[in-house]
């Protein structure tokens, strides 16, 4: 009903190639943005911000980053947690070393530093492929976490080995530290998500994105038709790490405020983001959002049903959650390898022709 295309003709190449080719999608996009920017900040509560919205936004950035690497360029990485830690610690060092510089600039710079680290760890991808590479990225995961745990310079020689974000303001409003209001941290994350998503979308449909996808589909063939694998793979690693670094910086500075690296950025974090990408959809920006939303909401919903409604013990619900996540991963890989994004597309296709599918 809503997805009528009659009268929605494209008269230029540009119009045909736009992100949302259907008029309804374009309106919906603006409506979603308007609600996110103009309605939610006024109604948001601490619980909603901390339990769902802020982690959802932050994980979305991480998922977009990993999706660029795994979904578009085909290089599966298990080092996401390590790269997020790079972002977080860079942000911490910058915040404490240059207190007067704007915090948002620090977050972007953390992304930049993470991009360099990511590109360095991406170098082996030129020699090794597939799960060899996936295992090789585990080296990044374990080495980086160890580094931030053991070298006191990174946590400013604090006794506990933790890092905690000092209070920083933007336009006179606290965005990090304990006095941050829910809407402020939400809006900071939202701005970053919006910008990252737009950048990612435009990168992936441009020449760079096409190079990534050709490397993903068959790297030797891509090389033969003139794609430079060095440039394509390293740029994928760098740009993906840039996003992941930003999400790590936000995760530390805006969301948690204080972290211990082994706990916050362990191997489980890498797997969680990978799951978001798989469930959401490999090679889809929308999928990154869908996967992040799904895996952020799942524990909350399970807790609501299991602990609050049925009165089960928390550890039991946590175990059930593992089973459920594992099951969903396998289910999606079997039934719908392209994830929630593909499901959404199928529904859209159906709606476009409904009620006369033939």
């Amino acid at each position, binding site marked *: 009903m809503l997805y009528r295309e009659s009268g929605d003709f494209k008269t230029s190449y540009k119009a045909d190639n736009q992100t949302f080719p259907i008029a309804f999608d374009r309106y919906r996009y603006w409506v979603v943005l308007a609600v996110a920017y103009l309605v939610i900040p006024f109604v948001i509560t601490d619980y909603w911000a901390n339990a769902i919205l802020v982690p959802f936004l932050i994980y979305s950035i991480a998922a977009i980053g990993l999706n660029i690497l795994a979904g578009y360029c*085909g290089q*599966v990485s298990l080092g996401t947690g390590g790269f997020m830690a790079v972002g977080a610690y860079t942000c911490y060092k910058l915040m404490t070393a240059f207190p007067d510089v704007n915090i948002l600039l620090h977050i972007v710079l953390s992304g930049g530093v993470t991009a360099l680290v990511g590109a360095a760890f991406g*170098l*082996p991808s030129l*020699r*090794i492929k*597939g*799960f*060899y590479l*996936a*295992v*090789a990225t*585990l*080296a990044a*995961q*374990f*080495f980086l*976490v*160890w580094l931030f*745990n*053991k*070298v006191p310079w990174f946590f400013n020689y604090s006794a506990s080995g933790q890092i905690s974000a000092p209070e920083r303001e933007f336009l006179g409003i606290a965005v990090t530290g304990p006095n941050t209001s829910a809407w402020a941290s939400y809006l900071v994350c939202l701005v970053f998500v919006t910008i990252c998503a737009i950048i990612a979308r435009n990168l992936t449909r441009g020449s760079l994105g096409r190079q990534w996808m050709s490397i993903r589909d*068959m790297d*030797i*063939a891509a090389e*033969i038709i003139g794609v430079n694998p060095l440039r394509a793979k390293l740029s994928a690693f760098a740009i993906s790490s840039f996003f992941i670094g930003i999400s790590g910086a936000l995760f530390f500075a805006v969301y948690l405020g204080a972290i211990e690296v082994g706990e916050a950025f362990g*191997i489980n974090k890498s*797997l969680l983001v*990978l*799951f978001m990408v*798989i469930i959401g959809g490999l090679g889809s920006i929308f999928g990154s959002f869908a996967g992040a939303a799904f895996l952020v909401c799942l524990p909350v919903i399970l807790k609501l049903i299991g602990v609050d409604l*049925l009165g*089960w*013990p928390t*550890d*039991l619900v946590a*175990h*059930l*959650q*593992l*089973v*459920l*996540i*594992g*099951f*969903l*991963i*396998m289910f999606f*890989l*079997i039934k719908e*390898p392209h994830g929630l994004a593909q499901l959404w597309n199928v529904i859209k296709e159906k709606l476009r022709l409904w009620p006369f599918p033939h």
Partner: protein
Amino acid sequence: MSADFLYGIEVIINGLMAGVLYALVALGFVLIFKASGIFNFAQGVMALFSALTLVGIMEGQVPFAHLINAIFGTSIHHFGWTVPAVLAIILTIGVMVIFAWMVQKFLFRHLVGQPHIILFMATIGLAYFLEGVGDLMWGSSIKRLELGLPQGGSLAIENLTSGLGGDDFYGFFIDKLDIVATIVAILLVILLVAFSQFTKYGRAMRAVADDHQAALSVGISLNFIWVLVWSLAGFVALVAGVMWGAKSGVQFSLSLIALKALPVLMLGGFTSIPGAIVGGLIIGVGEKLFEYLVGPMVGGATENWFAYVLALVFLIFRPQGLLGERIIERV
């Protein structure tokens, strides 16, 4: 001989012992990878799960007791009997065979022909699933594994070697359990090699590893072989789980230790059983020596990452691993 030198040798010996345990886990990976091209991320969790099951059966725990109690408001925990170790091991093997069959029937049958990386990610999902099921079935507390395996340092070796290095040297400290593990691992390898060389099913397994289509055409059932291979991997996982579990208790970190088998594999090559063993030994010795020589300078705990970085550096020069088959790619 100076004491420092002898301590170095002790570190190497202990590294070899640790390497044997890594190789044990790595063997399970190689078996499955050779036969089905699946890189089984869940191997570590399988070791954890089998060890949990073994403990649970031995102590007569009621499976899913926690869940049942939560749903029905009962409070059952144990059947009230204990099962002798041998019987419990046989039952656990039975559980692993059923697990292998279910994995084949419900998961990989539906993923035939998918790219390797999809299969890999499916096994990550499987790892999560199995971990959750293990916790649900047997509870997540740390359990002690009482199989009567010898524990502690071997006094005989310590006394025998204490005279070697003068007054500063007290003899080699070698854990008895490590010695047992080494013997078990050697036996296991001999058993596996004998199985794959001299039995009908072992030959069929090698045929499948060589070429799926050709194996199918001479009448080998791929399904059966895959169940067989997963069962074997489950058995290897049980042995590894028992050894690790006896050493440090059966707990979640078992599955993380097993992740160490991945760099072992990369070093040795995914397709080679001798490679898994050699790789295990190199990693075991390498990380212990590195920790002994360099660790104190950089703050210790280098064992967390050394294996991965070593494998990474190594792969840059030899992508197929030490003894793996050369990777040839065609368009």
